[in-house]
């Protein structure tokens, strides 16, 4: 049973407590158990997920509103998860219950079975995983080739095959399409095309180039909001080259089982009801008109736009700041509590130290998003996996600086301590720690500043913080929103740097302070 019952207002706090506990557990090296669900008698919640791009946000918001309207369950929105890997891990580990996906992505990227494209085939493959999938919603989001309507009319272009008769057309493709085997190289072979003038162009520039007549043919995504606005014609893939990326909803089997009315409402209202033109218009509302995801969803459902309560921007920023500080504070504290002793251990036992530094170094090379994805089956989505990943990233500078600070101490000073008969503890507290403190603190400072930046990635797994704005801004291609997240993150990094400078004065003995700069 994948649906979790949560008492209304405490969800967020519980998540934090859980996150803290799981972070500590992971670092203690204990077996990582899935965090226990906070069960209570309150109404069940359907947790709706989305990926971090406009269409996914809009579809998820439509799903969320339909669920709310049916009244069988509450909705928790877990939008903007970072990519297929993250959102799929969240679904299979029961952290979300439903999200919009594409058949081609399911068969190719997830099931690794390109043949399983029909709804029946997918259903058969997903059933053993405890998952269900709807029939196609009506549109496909796939690569397509577009020309101006005027060009299509003048040359009688209707299909991709028709392009063979017009090798003089000038094409602009984006770099990904130009290189991918399921892009231009494969397409050209499949249709036997020979265009004389093919150039590389970034996504945003292509539309301008096409509109101004500098090129005649571009690659597009078939639901792009610009298609309707710029009066472009998609050429039919008459020889079926592009894989089918039909939109569907994927859900945990518990949803139709426990909430049959909700599931029926979703199928009735969405399956076969969303054609490419409609999706293009909804995307255009957000991408071109600057409307919110909620407004686009409301437009489709024929609801009043202002249905979703809007928070004040300042309050929102305050909440994100607290979340971000929480992520940095908790992960850094755990990393210091674990990293300094690990560094001391490494300095005491050299062979173990080499092993340890190698291990921590390898952790650092794991891409952040991959590490976050690995954490989802263990710690769910939300702050938990983010905290664990941030801790692991913060370890390297702390462990290494502690180690370096201790092994580079002047051996004559250590020998003198032994000659004076200082006990092990006295040597540590009076000599080694104060002498190494500038280097250790520099490591912690580095970790803190880096963590402020890395913590923005937490949003990809629903961990909150300033990254929430950055992820949304990236989806909207809206520099203002990205900066609204990136700016405060930069300010926080500066503030934390300043805080540590002050801490330096408190912790590091005065005559050693000048030594900090070259070592940091």
């Amino acid at each position, binding site marked *: 049973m994948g649906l979790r019952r949560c008492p209304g207002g405490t969800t967020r706090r519980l998540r934090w407590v859980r996150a803290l506990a799981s972070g500590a557990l992971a670092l203690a090296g204990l077996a990582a158990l899935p965090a226990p669900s906070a069960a209570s008698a309150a109404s069940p919640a359907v947790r709706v997920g989305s990926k971090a791009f406009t269409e996914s946000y809009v579809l998820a918001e439509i799903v969320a509103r339909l669920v709310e309207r049916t009244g069988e369950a509450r909705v928790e929105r877990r939008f903007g998860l970072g990519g297929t890997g993250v959102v799929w891990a969240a679904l299979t580990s029961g952290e979300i219950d439903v999200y919009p996906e594409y058949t081609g992505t399911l068969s190719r990227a997830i099931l690794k079975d390109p043949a399983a494209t029909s709804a029946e085939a997918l259903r058969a493959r997903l059933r053993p995983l405890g998952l269900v999938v709807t029939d196609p919603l009506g549109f496909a989001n796939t690569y397509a080739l577009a020309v101006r309507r005027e060009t299509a009319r003048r040359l009688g272009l209707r299909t991709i095959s028709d392009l063979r008769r017009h090798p003089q057309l000038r094409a602009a493709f984006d770099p990904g399409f130009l290189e991918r085997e399921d892009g231009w190289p494969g397409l050209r072979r499949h249709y036997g095309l020979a265009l004389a003038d093919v150039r590389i162009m970034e996504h945003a520039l292509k539309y301008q180039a096409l509109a101004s007549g500098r090129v005649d043919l571009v690659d597009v995504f078939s639901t792009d909001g610009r298609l309707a606005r710029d009066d472009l014609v998609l050429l039919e893939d008459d020889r079926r080259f592009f894989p089918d990326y039909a939109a569907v909803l994927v859900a945990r089997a518990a949803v139709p089982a426990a909430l049959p009315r909700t599931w029926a409402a979703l199928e009735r209202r969405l399956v076969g009801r969303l054609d490419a033109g409609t999706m293009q218009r909804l995307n255009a509302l957000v991408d071109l008109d600057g409307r919110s995801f909620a407004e686009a969803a409301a437009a489709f459902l024929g609801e009043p736009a202002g249905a979703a309560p809007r928070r004040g921007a300042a309050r929102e920023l305050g909440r994100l700041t607290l979340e971000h500080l929480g992520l940095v504070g908790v992960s850094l504290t755990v990393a210091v509590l674990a990293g300094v002793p690990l560094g001391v251990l490494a300095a005491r036992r050299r062979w173990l130290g080499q092993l340890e530094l190698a291990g921590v170094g390898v952790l650092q090379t794991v891409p952040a998003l991959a590490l976050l994805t690995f954490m989802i089956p263990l710690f769910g989505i939300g702050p938990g996996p983010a905290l664990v990943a941030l801790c692991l990233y913060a370890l390297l500078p702390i462990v290494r600086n502690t180690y370096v600070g201790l092994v580079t101490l002047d051996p004559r000073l250590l020998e*003198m301590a032994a*000659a*004076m008969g200082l006990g092990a503890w006295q040597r540590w507290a009076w000599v080694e720690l104060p002498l190494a403190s500038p280097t250790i603190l520099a490591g912690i400072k580095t970790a803190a500043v880096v963590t402020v930046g890395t913590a923005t990635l937490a949003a990809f797994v629903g961990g909150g913080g300033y990254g929430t704005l950055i992820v949304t801004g990236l989806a909207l291609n809206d520099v203002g929103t990205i900066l609204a997240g990136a700016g405060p993150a930069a300010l926080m990094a500066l503030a934390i740097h300043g805080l540590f400078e002050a801490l330096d004065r408190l912790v590091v003995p005065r005559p050693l302070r000048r030594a900090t700069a070259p070592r940091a």
Partner: protein
Amino acid sequence: MIVLEDVTKTFAGRPAVVNVSLTVAPGTTHVLLGSSGSGKSTILRLVLGLLAPDRGRIVVDGIPVTPAARRELARRVGYVVQEGALYPHLTAAENALLPARAQRWPLARARARLEALATLVGLDPAGLARYPAELSGGQRQRVGLMRALMLDPPVLLLDEPFSALDPITRADLQGELLRIFQELRKTVLLVTHDIREAFLFGTTITLLHEGRVVQHGAFADLARRPADPFVARFLRAQAPPPAMTAQL
């Protein structure tokens, strides 16, 4: 009293000290003389118990030197090294008081001892509040000496204590140390490569070469009856030219 009996120490198969026996009588100063790599500093570390000998026996002030006896030894042996090896994060006073803190002396007793020592070594009281980086080389070495004398140990070990000082400071400090050793009747083992220092301080002298004792005796014995051509060469190498002595 310091006694070494047939002591040998090798590092990774390379002999550093070979079959060395020597005795320093209570209240006298013995000088270990030799060029660098002759094993003289290793002997000090063996006497301190910082290194364990491969063979042989060492007894300091009646206590056999073993790792277990290190804390007991620390109370009976003061150690001074080149440039003082003061802790840069502690003031001069804190450096000098460290052995007393380790022995958990009451503060009043430690402060009284600190003042007495400052007077003894001639350190300006204002210098006590300074950090090592703010002191001159001579002042640093005086603080190092205060630290070594803090617990009033009967034995002092000094490893090239003057080598980093300029000539005038060196001569001043040498004079004061001679006075202090005589006043306090310490048993002193002093390591140097400087025959002038050996002449000044050494009641007896041991000349070391490649870890072995080449000659043992008073300075006059070494000068007049060198046991070995090496002894004569070592002494001649550092003697001032006769013409210079005449003009001085």
